């Protein structure tokens, strides 16, 4: 049994009366590439936000590398409103902020690119190194952290070379073409030295060729940085080519899980999401 890096346990996210994620259970094992797919509004990004600490789940827990990092149970008004299961199972409240989750070793990208617009490509990646810096504000201001700073810069340069952005490192992040901005966002996430990389629709808006490049790229960085990758995606080519396992969400509920071949032939998935081809 391989060790699981991420485990989501009975997570339910309810906004008022709307259950966005309903009793989600999933596991991502070390070194795997796992995809989360589903129709629009199925709750994929919400699930991501629960894992990374942006939202506090209404009920349930998230484990990361064997440690429970998020836990919550319905409180206050939610006690009456709660529609999910496992209501009495959780008693603790653990709600780390997203920055803390990132420092634990989980870095993410966004569905709509969120680069720091006024910064250069190099600085965008360098800033992500800040959370790993040991210097405090005094040592940093008075340049007593020269060694660390130099190491960071060298590290960033290396990283940019690995992802193929070294030639544009002094350009503004927003002046890059779309595909490269996506790549830069991944590079920035890598700079935070994650164990688990979460990609929210990394191929959104890409043409088939760019998507193909990205597919290869994700596999490459997984091997090079010993990563585990968990991604949301709509491009089925990418998902089926790259994923070790796939989870399918529909209306907040997990409707199927398994390897790509099994998912492609799963009747419920075809009905809910993949659709039936005309001649079938």
């Amino acid at each position, binding site marked *: 049994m391989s060790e699981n890096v991420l485990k989501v346990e009975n997570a339910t996210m309810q906004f008022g009366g709307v259950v966005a994620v309903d009793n989600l259970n999933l596991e991502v094992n070390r070194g795997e590439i796992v995809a989360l797919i589903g129709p629009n509004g199925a709750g994929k990004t919400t699930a991501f936000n629960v894992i*990374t600490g*942006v939202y506090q789940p209404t009920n349930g827990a998230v484990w990361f590398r064997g440690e429970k990092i998020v836990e919550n149970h319905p409180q206050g008004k939610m006690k009456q409103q709660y529609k999910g299961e496992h209501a009495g199972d959780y008693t603790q409240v653990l709600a780390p*902020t*997203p*920055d*803390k989750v*990132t*420092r634990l070793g989980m*870095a*993410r990208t*966004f569905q709509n690119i*969120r*680069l*720091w*617009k*006024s*910064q250069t490509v190099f*600085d965008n990646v*360098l*800033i*992500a*190194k*800040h*959370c*790993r*810096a040991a*210097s405090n*504000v005094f040592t*940093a*201001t*008075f*340049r007593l*952290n020269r060694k660390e*700073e130099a190491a*960071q810069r060298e590290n960033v340069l290396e990283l940019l070379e690995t992802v193929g952005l070294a030639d544009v490192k002094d350009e503004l992040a927003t002046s890059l073409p779309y595909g490269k901005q996506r790549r830069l966002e991944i590079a*920035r*996430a890598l700079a*935070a030295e994650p164990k688990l990389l979460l990609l929210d629709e990394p191929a959104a808006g890409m043409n088939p060729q760019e998507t193909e490049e990205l597919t290869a790229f994700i596999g490459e960085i997984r091997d090079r940085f010993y990563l585990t990758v968990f991604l949301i995606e709509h491009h089925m080519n990418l998902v089926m080519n790259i994923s070790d396992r796939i989870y399918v969400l529909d209306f907040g509920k997990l409707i199927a899980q398994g390897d790509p071949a099994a998912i492609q032939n799963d009747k419920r998935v075809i009905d809910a999401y993949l659709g039936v081809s005309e001649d079938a």
Partner: protein
Amino acid sequence: MKKTVSKSAWATLLCVAALLALVVILENVLDPNKNIMVFTALKKGAVYALVAVSMNLLNGFTGLFSLGQAGFMLLGAYTYAILTIPVAQRDAVYYIYNGSAINFSLPELFGGGAFGLVLGVVLALALGGCVAAAVAWLIGLPVLRLKSDYLAIATLGFGEIIRAVFQWDKLGPVTNGANALKNFPTFSSFNITNGSGETVLRLSTFTAFLLAGACIAVIVLLINSTYGRAFKAIRDDEVAAEAMGINLSKHKRLAFVISSFFAGVGGGMFAMFANQAQAKTFTTAMTYEILLIVVIGGIGSVSGSCIAAFLYVAASEWWLRFLDAETFIGGFKVPLLRNGFRMVVFSVVIMIVVLFFRRGIMGDKELPDLLEKRRKERAK
């Protein structure tokens, strides 16, 4: 690449040293009594430059729209004044309250003389900054949860409250109520005199420049450090910054506290410039003046704030003075020139500046960046 960085750092340092030397020479060659306006503008400009840069650190680099600058300046000014009024003068200053509750003076504690003066003044200014920073930390706990306009309103309110508190009669023995604190060491105290009381070397403007320059240098170092980069990330995209491991509340509070520290130091220096510290001078209007300097100079540009501070102070205190005086050319009275007309023209000038330099004089560029660009263009 590394070499060019240190090269430009040396060049900057050399320029600053040259500027300081120029100030000393200017001050000792020109007769200050005949050129009062020049030196007033220079000293006030230096003080305002520091406060504007401290405000820019918050508004321009961290993206927190705060309007509490005058309040923090007040804290710095009062702390500085209270700690440095000579013991012998205290009864005269606090005559309404029958003497001061605090009966020591830092320059005297350090044995008086030139050494005591320098050490006492620097320490008092730093303590003024610390008081402002400590108060900022406390206010930051609730206030920094707010964003943009709401934060501005909350900090504006804080400034007003501080001003009212310091005028409170019950605090009289410490703050001298609504009356001014005076007789403490000012910039002129740094002029070197000989035995018979004649000024040998004038250093008052130089002192203002040196203090402001040192503080601005620290802010620039901070902005270019890993923490400064984190501030800029928060300004550009908070959500992304948090997702990349930057603790928002910690970094926002840090920026707020550091900015307030330097506003406090600037307040102490303002008291030195004005020869007195009185709560009613640190009004909202003063915050707006500084905000105006930041906007005119360019939000997110330190050199812009410095240039704009001097231009603003010189224009309002010096160049446009003649508009306030009734002038006769021969027997003809020039129309419109009368007391108060200066501010009308001044407002129009500012409107024109804002219309034509929408992003301020410097935008978010620094002076060396622009020179570099020009050099590159010429090379092409």
